[in-house]
């Protein structure tokens, strides 16, 4: 067990400075941009005061990607963009070039590799999402699968710009809502529907009881003693299954294969344009987990109707 490092270690160096990653046209025109236009779905041009142009080709990505996929993006960037690219705040990848003639060959190559060009303007820009069963230990559902199934259904709205306006989607595997589920236009939220199953003999050993009690938004948790052991009990009428207690107290697991599922939320927004940011509102309280595609209830039809 090593507690002493052997040689002076570099620490606290922070990220690399972004400047080294900027396309020369971007660097030259930094802070001097004049306007932008959509040339077609997935292709933007930004025009600088100087007249210089930078083209951005936006490509959909599953976010959960292997080094093979990243290397593919790197290869494409080398081939068509002098190696310059970026990722977006909604998990897409953008290839950046100042050469208009590179656009079509890049698009053809990207699409041949199985990646869609789109997500710009009045479109769905991808679904922000969390780890789900792939990695999250408080997940009520899987999210990568849900996102894949949903984007398959809504694919036409990614590769085109035919919606009334931008549509931001998000999916989260539990109420911690990593991402922006609480403010997206349409959101899918993993939920539990049964109270935690308390392991009394573990609680006082691994959980700080006051923190566990105060972790409950509805004050449903009280300290108690069971067979001489300090533990907690949950008032099941007050419990709304948020699983925050499980986060602070590992002795209160809450996942329930029969009753966990997803809820659907509508009507949030993150930006200030025209109106203030808003929270999403509950549209459908429960759909059962039915991996891989939740086909049983044909929810994709519902979403298509909403659009």
């Amino acid at each position, binding site marked *: 067990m090593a507690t002493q490092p052997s040689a002076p270690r570099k620490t606290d160096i922070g990220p690399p400075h972004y400047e080294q990653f900027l396309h020369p046209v971007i660097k030259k025109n930094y802070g001097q941009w004049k306007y932008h236009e959509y040339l077609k779905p997935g292709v933007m041009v930004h025009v600088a005061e100087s007249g210089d142009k930078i083209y951005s080709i936006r490509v959909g990505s599953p976010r959960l990607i292997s080094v093979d996929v990243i290397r593919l993006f790197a290869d494409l960037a080398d081939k068509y963009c002098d190696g310059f690219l970026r990722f977006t705040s909604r998990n897409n990848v953008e290839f950046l070039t100042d050469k208009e003639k590179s656009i079509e060959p890049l698009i053809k190559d990207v699409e041949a590799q199985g990646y869609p060009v789109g997500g710009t303007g009045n479109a769905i820009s991808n679904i922000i999402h969390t780890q789900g069963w792939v990695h999250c230990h408080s997940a009520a559902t899987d999210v990568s699968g849900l996102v894949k199934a949903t984007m398959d259904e809504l694919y036409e709205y990614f590769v085109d710009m035919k919606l009334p306006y931008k549509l931001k989607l998000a999916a989260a595997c539990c109420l911690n809502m990593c991402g922006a589920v609480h403010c997206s236009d349409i959101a899918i939220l993993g939920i539990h529907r049964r109270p935690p199953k308390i392991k009394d003999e573990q609680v006082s*050993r691994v959980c*700080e009881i006051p923190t566990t009690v105060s972790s409950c938004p509805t004050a449903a948790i009280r300290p108690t003693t069971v067979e001489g052991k300090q533990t907690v009990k949950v008032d099941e009428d007050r419990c709304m299954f948020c699983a925050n207690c499980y986060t602070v107290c590992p002795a209160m697991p809450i996942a329930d294969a029969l009753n966990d599922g997803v809820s659907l939320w509508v009507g949030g927004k993150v930006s200030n344009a025209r109106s203030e940011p808003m929270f999403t509102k509950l549209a459908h309280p429960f759909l059962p987990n039915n991996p891989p595609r939740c086909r049983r209830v044909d929810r994709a039809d519902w979403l298509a109707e909403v659009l």
Partner: protein
Amino acid sequence: MKRSRQALVELLRARKYPEVLVTFGAHRKTVRSLRSLLYAEEALVKWRTVSMFGWLAAERPDLIAQEVDRLIWSLNDEAGSIGRGAPECIGEIGRNNIGLVQHGVDVVIHYIEDPETCRPPNRNTEILVGVLWALGRLGGGKPKRVQKVMPVLLSFTEDPDAAVRGMAAWSLGQIGGADATARLQGLTEDAGVTLLYEDEQLNEKTVAAIAREALAHLNR
């Protein structure tokens, strides 16, 4: 920031605990800087920071009223961070001012009962050693506090890792009792080597030496 961090480290190396507050101010920012030093790569700096928290517990408990809750939380793997130095701090704070740790101390005491966190293959040995040290500090003041976990504590004297055996031995020497004495007598030939923080000094010792010193301490 880097300059002042170095100055803080120098004061801790020199064991000038009151001067820390005089130089950097008696406010939360100083305490946060100390929390940060629990992660210092140099072991002595981490341990002196632990002693500094003990000093604060005795002299300026108002500055660390919230600290124990946060230290306990950092031992929960859901916290997303690693509670290096947290068990030691809780032990040292508890030794100096038991009122400050009432809520959290059981989590530290019972930590060694969880095989997930304390036995191979998934354990964090440094945290475990820190907990064993804390048990010594807490139990050394009040042995009754740690009686419930004595059987498990005794079992760590047979751990494959010398650092764990050594700290368990030291801890038993602080707590005492017939079982502790008997177990320590079985360790007086253990040639495993470890680092021990005692009386604010960090020294390399064999488990055997620790056991012998512990027995001498108990028999005085």
